[in-house]
């Protein structure tokens, strides 16, 4: 009797224990109604004879980081040792004068694989890490760069006074407020375009500085200056005592006696992003770091980018914009640490 009672009592004691320990599984039917956050996409596409598999992550990333060295593709290329990409003191993001971190921002990063059909086999011929959008300051001393890094130079002619050249000074004095535009790309020291292990950026041979005055007075001055051949100006939009647009053509890394090719390592900090009218930057598409065995055309929406073999850093056209002064004299490095060697260690 007592044993029966004990057993019954023991059972009562154990029941709550069992209940406490028992997790009830969710039924398959209930589980199938659960939906996770769709923060990942996988796509397949085909273009230019290649198949692509792309994994995109729905992420917003904000960061501030520093690295002593970023070096990719260190091997002997065409008989010459070196690195496809080598950046010393690499940094993303900055610290403003109030001591606030201004992060480098990235959205929707992706990894894309490129495959080539080889008699029924899928040869992996390229891989890239890219970003749906990026903005912020990229700093570093660029020793070697394989890729695309087009820089828009936008300023007024007044900026030519930084060139330390008499003709440029005169042009600057005459047309101080006229907008001036040019596009700089990776080049050799003779001005020929070269995006493999480049150490210089500049206005390639045959490319022009465009001076586009807005006022009637400046158009007249430009017409007169071009007529006199001042500063190598060539009017391409002639009017009646007026020039709507004049060019200075670059050749051999010079334009009207001005050096137009610059060491990459003088650009110590670069703004990445689309510059807005108010001077701020919005996200820019097309920033990627690729690695491919042969030239591959990567596609981003309506934009196609040819990437050469090896490591390849693509910064989209229009993503970087500097003034003439910055182009001619380089860009100073922004603060990237609170105790920063570039600011005397503090």
């Amino acid at each position: 009797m007592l044993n029966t009672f004990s057993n019954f009592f023991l059972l009562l004691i154990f029941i709550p224990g069992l209940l406490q320990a028992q997790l009830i599984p969710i039924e398959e039917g209930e589980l199938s109604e659960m939906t996770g956050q769709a923060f990942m996409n996988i796509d397949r596409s085909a273009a230019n004879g290649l198949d692509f598999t792309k994994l995109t992550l729905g992420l917003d990333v904000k960061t501030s980081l520093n690295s002593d060295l970023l070096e990719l593709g260190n091997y002997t290329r065409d008989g010459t040792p070196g690195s496809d990409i080598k950046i010393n003191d690499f940094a993303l993001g900055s610290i403003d004068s109030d001591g606030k971190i201004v992060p480098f921002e990235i959205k929707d990063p992706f990894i894309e694989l490129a495959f080539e059909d080889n008699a029924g086999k899928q040869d992996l011929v390229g891989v890239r890490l890219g970003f749906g959008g990026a903005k912020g300051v990229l700093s570093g001393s660029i020793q070697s760069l394989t890729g695309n890094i087009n820089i828009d130079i936008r300023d007024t002619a007044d900026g030519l006074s930084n060139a330390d050249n008499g003709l440029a000074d005169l042009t600057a004095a005459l047309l101080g407020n006229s907008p001036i535009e040019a596009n700089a790309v990776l080049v050799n020291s003779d001005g020929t375009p070269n995006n493999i292990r480049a150490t210089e950026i500049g206005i390639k041979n045959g490319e022009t500085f465009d001076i586009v005055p807005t006022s009637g007075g400046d158009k007249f001055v430009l017409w007169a200056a071009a007529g006199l051949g001042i500063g190598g100006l060539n009017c391409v939009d002639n009017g009646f005592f007026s020039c709507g647009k004049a060019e200075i053509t670059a050749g051999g890394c010079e334009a009207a006696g001005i050096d137009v090719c610059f060491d990459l390592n003088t650009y110590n900090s670069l703004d990445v992003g689309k510059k807005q009218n108010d001077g701020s930057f919005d996200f820019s598409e097309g920033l990627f770091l690729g690695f491919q065995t042969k030239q591959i055309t990567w596609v981003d929406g309506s934009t196609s980018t040819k990437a050469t073999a090896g490591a390849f850093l693509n910064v989209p056209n229009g993503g970087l914009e500097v003034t003439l002064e910055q182009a001619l004299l380089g860009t100073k490095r922004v603060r990237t640490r609170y105790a920063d060697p570039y600011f005397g260690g503090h």
Partner: protein
Amino acid sequence: MKLVSLKTNAVMSIILFSQLSYSDLEMLTDKHLGNVDGAGIGIVLEDFIFNGGEAVNGGGTFEISGLQSSDNKPVVLGISQFYIAGSGSDQGTNIDNNPVNIGRLTNPFNLELRDGNDLDVGVTDKAVFEFSAPTILNGSRLSERPDMGIRFDLEIDGVSHQSLENHIESLSIDGSYIRLWGGNGRMEGELALNVYTPNIEFFACDSTGLNCGETVSFQNVSIELELGQGEYQPVTFEVDSTGNFIFEVGTLEGKCASTNGTGGCDSGTAGYTELNDYYTTGPASNTYIGNVSVGGQSFGSTTISNLQIQYLEVKSHDL
């Protein structure tokens, strides 16, 4: 009868006592926990083999579904093989009778509560949970370094496209650890992840897993990742009210009592010493890949050295 009754009462008392104890766990204060110095639990898996997937003895496939392409077509990732085995697994084909020891009795994986005041922990007066891999000092032997691999089968909108394979040889994560503690009303932590392997390979095959193409391999890989530094720069992982996750490495902003005119921290200012120490000896990540090879073509080494993250926020969102 009395004897039985006494025994029964004793048993009942023990049971009741255990039940009461079970339901009335008393919290230890962080200070008390900080004094705990247990040896922890060492974990070693000897003669370990894992081999799963449909390609193995008619096994089932583990599928990740619910994914979509950018044009909203359903995507299914089937994992047709996942293995952990001994060295020489030959890309997952030599698994049977090829076991590996995960850890060693004299150098195991460890689960333990540590005193946060220990110099290498740096979480004042708190107990810190630590899960750590074998130490670098004693180093995992070849028989303790597993081969691992995984094969994904990609299906989009009901059409099988390809099979993607990844194989890692002789993997060691010696010196890795994750530490967790309670702070500021949330769980905080820091982590170190080391990955050493002589070879990581990626390649693709057709949808049946045959006709595999050229291989991309990363040789002599050494990745040493450090994120966070105790309470000075905690790492946090949270889920917000929308169901999205937020991963953060704490910011260094505000560590200097008063910044100068360019935003820097002058020596002598409160916080300067800690910041300077952080930049010279704080958490840093290094990556070295001896050679990247694609289809037998060599593209040399890759180096990222002394990478320090002074702020990171990663937040997910729907695509």
